[in-house]
């Protein structure tokens, strides 16, 4: 694999935009990334678009990727839609990295976009005559079950979980694109409406629309566009092992993905300056800081309690505000994490800046299969 550089990123505001179409959101992000990179549509040689929910009922029975991209002048080239649940966007980014790193293409674009409001799409509850459907399963329930085991096995508390929301809301207040740039207290988190016991509304990421995009090219081509070279150190993807009686408080898939990413990038967790971690629920950030090696197993609650992971602390996690505050337009999230990494590494993160950031990690996971995770990605960028 030759060196690949991210030369442009773009992102829409994240929020509820029932009147915006998925094309509008995707195009806004793609165009912003192209302008940021200084590239024309015809410079892009291959593109990947991450999206979960577009389907017949939403008006896109097929080829939503092509429909989005034609609106920014990207036509004729190989275009593929990518789906890996919440990590669809990161997977699209990884495909773009492979396309350029392999030498097959010199410039690629990864776009992520999701529209969850305005069409009565509803939550991602399972329905129908399946085991999940007759149990009334939905993703918050899986995390609630994980939380209970984590609390029983390691003594993690609801207050520690709430502190993740408090921290990420504080960060997100500094993010002009965040959905809820407003702080919350531990008490407000605990008193907010119950979703799936013990997870409350403020323990959970919101319903969000949005798009994000990134332009990647070879190191050699990159020098024509920018002197701020942000390298892709690693973009790893794994799927689960689906062991029937696993410990659900640990996501071993994330440990595996992280381990390989560290090896590829030639860094360890101690070399990272910050990380964006998939905090779909407060407990998720706690579990993932353990799996990614930022602290020992079972100590994720202590980590957030100590203040280590807040902006200004030793190791900021989710300086963007994370999914909890910024929002979670599913397909866009992974690419938005990459955008945050790029802005941080370029020194362009404004009030959210992690001083002297040189190496950042973006983690994203998705999918619920056999009490395990369907897909997990770890991306490391460095300058």
């Amino acid at each position: 694999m030759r060196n690949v550089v991210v030369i442009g990123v773009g992102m829409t505001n994240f929020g509820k935009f029932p009147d915006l179409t998925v094309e509008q959101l995707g195009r806004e992000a793609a165009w912003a990334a192209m302008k940021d990179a200084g590239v024309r549509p015809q410079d892009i040689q291959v593109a990947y678009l991450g999206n979960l929910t577009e389907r017949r009922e939403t008006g896109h029975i097929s080829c939503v990727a092509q429909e989005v991209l034609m609106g920014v002048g990207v036509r004729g080239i190989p275009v593929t839609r990518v789906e890996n649940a919440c990590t669809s966007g990161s997977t699209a980014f990884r495909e773009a990295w492979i396309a350029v790193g392999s030498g097959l293409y010199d410039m690629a674009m990864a776009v992520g976009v999701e529209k969850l409001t305005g069409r009565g799409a509803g939550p991602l509850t399972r329905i129908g005559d399946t085991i999940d459907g007759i149990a009334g399963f939905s993703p918050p329930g899986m995390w609630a079950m994980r939380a209970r085991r984590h609390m029983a096995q390691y003594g993690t508390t609801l207050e520690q979980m709430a502190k993740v929301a408090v921290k990420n809301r504080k960060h997100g207040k500094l993010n002009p694109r965040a959905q809820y740039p407003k702080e919350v207290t531990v008490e407000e988190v605990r008193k907010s409406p119950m979703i799936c016991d013990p997870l409350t509304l403020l323990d959970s990421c919101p319903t969000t629309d949005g798009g994000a995009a990134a332009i990647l090219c070879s190191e050699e081509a990159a020098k024509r566009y920018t002197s701020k070279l942000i390298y892709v150190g690693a973009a790893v993807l794994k799927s689960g092992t689906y062991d029937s009686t696993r410990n659900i408080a640990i996501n071993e898939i994330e440990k595996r993905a992280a381990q390989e990413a560290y090896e590829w990038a030639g860094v360890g967790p101690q070399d990272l300056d910050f990380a964006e971690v998939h905090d779909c629920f407060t407990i998720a950030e706690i579990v993932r800081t353990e799996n990614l090696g930022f602290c020992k197993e079972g100590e994720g609650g202590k980590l957030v309690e100590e203040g280590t992971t807040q902006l200004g602390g030793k190791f900021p996690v989710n300086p963007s505000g994370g999914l909890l505050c910024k929002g979670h337009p599913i397909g866009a999230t992974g690419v938005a994490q990459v955008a945050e990494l790029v802005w941080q590494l370029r020194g362009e993160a404004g009030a959210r800046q992690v001083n002297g950031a040189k190496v950042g990690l973006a983690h994203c996971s998705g999918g619920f299969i056999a009490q395990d995770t369907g897909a997990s990605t770890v991306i490391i960028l460095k300058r």
Partner: protein
Amino acid sequence: MVSFNPSILTLSAPEDGQPHLLGSCCSSCGKVFFPPQELCTECLQEGSIKEKALNSRGKVYSFTIVARESLAPPGFQVPYAYGYIDLPEGVRVLSKIVGWTPETLKLDVPGEMVLEEIRQDSLGQKIMGFRFKLV
């Protein structure tokens, strides 16, 4: 009445005539799977998979109580509970939990699988599913 999925839930098992969840057992390596599989992914032996009626009794590995109405599928009323149930064969089953109270529903509590009507089809036939009932 009919099972929601006869390959997963049988309404009559040979030995005791009771409804049972159906898993798969590999006659070569002994591994038990739920839901059923056509191939033993443990030892990859072809043709070794046999149907296995699973134990009705197990315990709650973890659970949640759904409080948010928008998360409830058609036919469900909040609050309702579901969880992962550990069965003695070494499989874990996702199941709606019934017969619980906020005081009795805890990690590791025992229970048994029971039949419950999920809905009726257009001909008025009862479609049956399984639930884990605390004992």
